[in-house]
């Protein structure tokens, strides 16, 4: 299963925006293992700056963060880069996550999410390409 994903992707770059260190580490370990290029931002503001300054194929963005929440990040980034896919992560059921999905975010994963869910979402996204 992991192999199939790995074969499909051509060194795609993924930005992870999350203030939780353990989540950042997990996603990094897992996606790195799958062969993606990973970069990290620890809060919303930093995430926006990175997302706008470099090219990424996908953004993992947490909703509840200091200095700009996930929804703000999504709005500000997609305003400039409307094609950039966002996967929102959310530790709480929140209107902001729903609003982001309504506006076009690819998916919202509720924490704690399993790796299967990530794999599925990744497959869906990169299949389209």
């Amino acid at each position: 299963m992991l192999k199939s994903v790995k074969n499909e992707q051509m060194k795609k770059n993924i930005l992870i925006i999350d203030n939780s260190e353990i989540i950042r580490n997990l996603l990094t370990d897992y996606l790195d293992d799958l062969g993606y290029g990973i970069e990290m931002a620890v809060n919303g503001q930093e995430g926006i700056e990175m997302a706008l300054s470099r090219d990424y194929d996908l953004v993992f963005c947490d909703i509840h963060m200091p200095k700009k929440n996930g929804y703000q990040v999504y709005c500000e980034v997609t305003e400039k880069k409307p094609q950039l896919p966002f996967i929102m992560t959310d530790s709480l059921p929140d209107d902001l996550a729903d609003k982001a999905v309504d506006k076009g975010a690819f998916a919202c994963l509720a924490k704690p999410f399993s790796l299967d869910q990530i794999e599925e979402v990744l497959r869906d996204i990169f299949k389209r390409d």
Partner: protein
Amino acid sequence: MSFQKFINSLKLRTKFMLPISVLVISSVFAISSYLIKSQNENMRTDLEDKGIMMLKIVSTSAESGVLFESEYELNELLERVTQFNDITYAAIFRPDNSLLAEAGIWDDSNIESISPFIDEDIIDEKNIDSLVIGKNGKEFLKMSHDITTLINTLNREILGIRAGNDIKNQSQVVETIGKLIIVISLENLNKSIYESKKTAIVITLIVLLLTIIMIAFFIDLVISPIKQLVSVAEKVKMGDLSQKADLNQSDEIGHLADTFDNMVESLRETRDEIEEYNRNLEQKIIERTLELEEVQVQLIQSEKLSAIGQLAAGVAHELNNPLGGILGYSQFALEKMKKSSENASEPIDHSKFIRYLTDIETQARRCKTIVQNLLRFSRSSKSTDFRRVDMNAVVEDTCTFVEHQLYMNQIELELILSDKLPQIQGDAGQLQQVFTNLIINAMHASPQESVIKIATRFSQSVGEFAGAIEIIVSDKGSGISTENIKKIFEPFFTTKQVGKGTGLGLSVSYGIIKEHGGEIRVDSTVDEGSTFTVILPVQNIVESPINQVSTENQ
């Protein structure tokens, strides 16, 4: 003191006795003195009448003796006169005031003083009497009478003619030929007067005594029930309502006593009712107090639940991240293990696996801490559970709950914790509730990107406390108006929007801190911020290290 006042100050007995005694005494005296006086007069008159009779008889008898100047005969006559009671002295004087004859003795030797013709004034018309006081103070009655004769008779005597048939035809010229004087001693009279006076006085006194005794007896009859009534009333006044006068009299006082008894009876009934009511009231107060205490406990609990509700999001966030890590890393490690066992060309990288498992353990521990913390906080404490508490740990634990919310509201939390805090006796869960409340309040008042500072410190002396821990929560928020600052500890007072606060937070916090023997102080300026200082006394520390239980292990 006016007369009216004097009368009013008298006792009832005196009030009765005084006028009655005065009346009785004066009337008895009036009657007896009138009787004595009239008796005296009668006796005196009697004596005088006897004297006059004596004078008339003796002067008639003495006529011939005087005519013939027969001293012997006259002396004999006077001697007999003085034999009579009370007549002490008798004398006959010639018209020229010379003594013709006398008998008896009179202690006043000055015969001149009784001379009838010298002192004309003392002889009244009837020739009756005059009072003479003797030298020794004895009283005498001096009486005199003319000794008369008819001249014709004289002539006839001289002529020796004794026939008297033609006397009536003679001219009746009366010639005074001498004067008879008798002196009657009043000693006996006075003695008997004195005796009768004495008797009268004794009788008067006896009558008086009897009267007074009678009056006193009757007054007692009237007064003693009144006294009894008064003594019962006194006892009633002292609170003994079981007293009864029970006079069993049918007069006005009896009626008064019956009325009084009835009054006391109904008073007693009323008092018993009131006491019964009071007992019920006390019972009710105790019941209500217990109910209130129950409600207070429930209030603390519900306020706590409200706080938990507000913190739930933060707690979920706190839990979901480590749980996500645990879930993800365990899956990841499992996948890797499976792959390695299926395909020998992919060996297990032990160092990576150690890191995954360490992360899992760390995150699981974090979850455990959060859950424990939450449970400790939400535990329903019917009574306060006092243990040794490290206030820094309480503050830090509290912060883990609220951190997320502060984070979300983009408010920074700055902890300045003193490392020299002694431990205190306290209920960690309740104290956490206080600080949760204070921090959430500060958060609600603070604008975005402001800082809430929490500092702990130990002071040797704060206000009335000798040795206390101060926990200072200060914000740069909207502050509290002077009008509201008086009300912030009142239950249900809130300036927050509906749904954001119960209005119980500070009042419950205040109760908790009071329970810990401490106090909460507020210092606030509108638009500049508020500082809440919780002061907890440390006098109840037990210094034995064996008993030290950190909040972590509770």
